[in-house]
């Protein structure tokens, strides 16, 4: 740091003062405003990528959801009458929805930032006058939009199979937004961290999918033996699905407050990691 101070002294005085004068009152901060056009450009770019791959992006998750309904809803559901007073087919809707939104958020956001790293076009992002916040807003904003769209489509598909009612629509949307935001952020981190396509697939495969299946998407954790129930409570996804299901049917495995708090905590953790990544330039800059 002393080197920086010394070099400033060595600079011609005129150059320094003129620079400061044009930059505004405080030389330490950037006087220019938020680069909204930059954010919009990233967002549009990502959405264009989404449109190009519409088939994979939407059709695949919808088909797999429909399959879940056929297999779990009809085949298994015919043997289980109701869970917490809701037909089994309807019971699994919130969990399925959460499962798709969560995986898609993770996949979309991680791929979105991994690709420029992979192809080398990240140079442009790094050399543009966009702050880290703006980059995250662009990428994560787009990933969240896609997930919400997907969520709506899955809900539509599900309603073709089973009657669905939503007791607390505002809460439902809040949970959906919070979840897709958290997992998109998480995906962004994953995309920054990954050095290969294998690593990009690794986290969703090894961590998220099992946690989701063990997160009570297809059963109420009350249905588990006591010991397993305790283990399950360490799975953060349980809280997400439980809260989300409550917004549909008014019944939950864990208290609503706990669900909201743990979702919020996860979001905060992701945000903190992102801030750290940009502060240190971790895996983005040399």
């Amino acid at each position, binding site marked *: 740091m002393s*080197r*920086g101070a*010394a*070099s*400033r002294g*060595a*600079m011609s005085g*005129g*150059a*320094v003062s*003129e*620079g*400061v004068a*044009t*930059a505004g009152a405080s*030389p*330490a*901060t*950037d*006087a*220019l405003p938020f*680069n909204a*056009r*930059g954010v*919009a*450009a*990233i967002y*549009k*770019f990502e959405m*264009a*990528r989404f449109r*190009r791959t519409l088939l994979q992006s939407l059709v695949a998750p919808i088909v797999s959801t429909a399959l879940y309904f056929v297999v779990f809803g009809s085949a298994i559901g015919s043997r289980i009458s109701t869970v917490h007073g809701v037909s089994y087919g309807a019971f699994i809707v919130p969990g399925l929805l959460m499962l798709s939104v969560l995986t898609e958020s993770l996949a979309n956001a991680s791929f979105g930032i991994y690709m420029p790293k992979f*192809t*080398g*076009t990240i*140079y*442009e*992002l*790094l*050399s*543009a*006058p*966009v*702050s880290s916040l703006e980059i995250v807003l662009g990428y994560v904003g787009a990933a969240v939009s896609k997930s919400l769209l997907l969520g709506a489509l899955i809900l539509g598909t599900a309603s073709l199979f089973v009657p669905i009612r939503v007791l607390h629509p505002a809460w439902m949307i809040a949970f959906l937004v919070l979840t897709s935001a958290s997992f998109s952020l998480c995906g962004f981190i994953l995309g920054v961290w990954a050095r290969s396509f294998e690593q990009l697939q690794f986290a969703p495969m090894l961590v998220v999918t099992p946690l989701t299946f063990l997160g009570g998407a297809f059963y109420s954790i009350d249905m588990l033996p006591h010991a397993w129930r305790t283990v399950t409570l360490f799975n953060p996804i349980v809280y997400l699905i439980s809260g989300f299901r409550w917004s549909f049917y008014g019944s939950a495995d864990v208290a609503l407050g706990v669900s909201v708090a743990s979702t919020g905590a996860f979001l905060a953790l992701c945000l903190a990691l992102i801030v750290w990544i940009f502060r240190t*330039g971790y895996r983005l*800059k*040399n």
Partner: protein
Amino acid sequence: MTAALSISRLTKTYASGLQALKDVDLEIPRGEIFALLGPNGAGKTTLINIVCGIVTPSGGRVLADGYDVLRQYRAARRLIGLVPQELSTDMFETVRHTVQYSRELFGCRRDPALLERLLRDLSLWDKRNDRIMTLSGGMKRRVMIAKALAHEPRILFLDEPTAGVDVELRRDMWQLVRGLREREVTIVLTTHYIEEAEEMADRVGVINHGSLILVEEKRRLMKQLGRKELTLHLSEPLRAIPEALSDWRLTLSADGTEIQYRFDSVSEHSDIPALLRRIGELGIGFKDLNTRQSSLEEIFVGLVGRRAAASAERDVALSTEER
């Protein structure tokens, strides 16, 4: 006037421990075309990437038009355009969209007229709706140039813009650079084609092993370091150089029909008129005469070579001392 670029005591040590830049100081005035030369791995790209925000410096400071590239990065980066060394573009986007994206990313309003002019200047207008992956390598490079110019930068970095590029594109590039110079855009380019620096640059910097070993106006560099060569094509072959000409270090070609005189244009006393007079007095006739100045490439090779030789000598001296 504020310098377009002012670099002071810039250092960079990569995580691997490799010191890619050592205390680099450089000031580039507005509107100048500056050519950065140096062998592979000298640190040219590292220097450019630090200015553009792609690599974080380990120490020192960079001002672009007076704005600190780290603390006032928004203001600084708006002024800067970069055509990187590596060809990397989005494959699935169309030419038009990708250039438009670049402009908006830099916070500028869409400008269809500017976009059209840019694409026409770079002979990309016919390809504007083509996906980038369908273009040839040279065309992709043009796209990258268009992207770099989309926000009308005041300082443009061209990192080996003509590597692997055909003659036509190279000529277009030179044309483009001249056009930008007329608009007072400052240009920093790196190249391994020294004729390129010779053709375009106002000043030349030579970097080697992370140190800027020389910054000089191109003309003066050529004058100072350039060797000149005078050749006389004789009417009658000579057997040997006459004694009377021993004041000049002359060489006679094997067949005796050419006299060559090599001299440092500045450092050496080279009285050509006197030489020619003396030759006339001796009755040696010549039918033609030409002079040749050494190219920047020869100068550059000489410079880097001389340094290497000097350090080798030092090593030898050290090892003999040890004994």
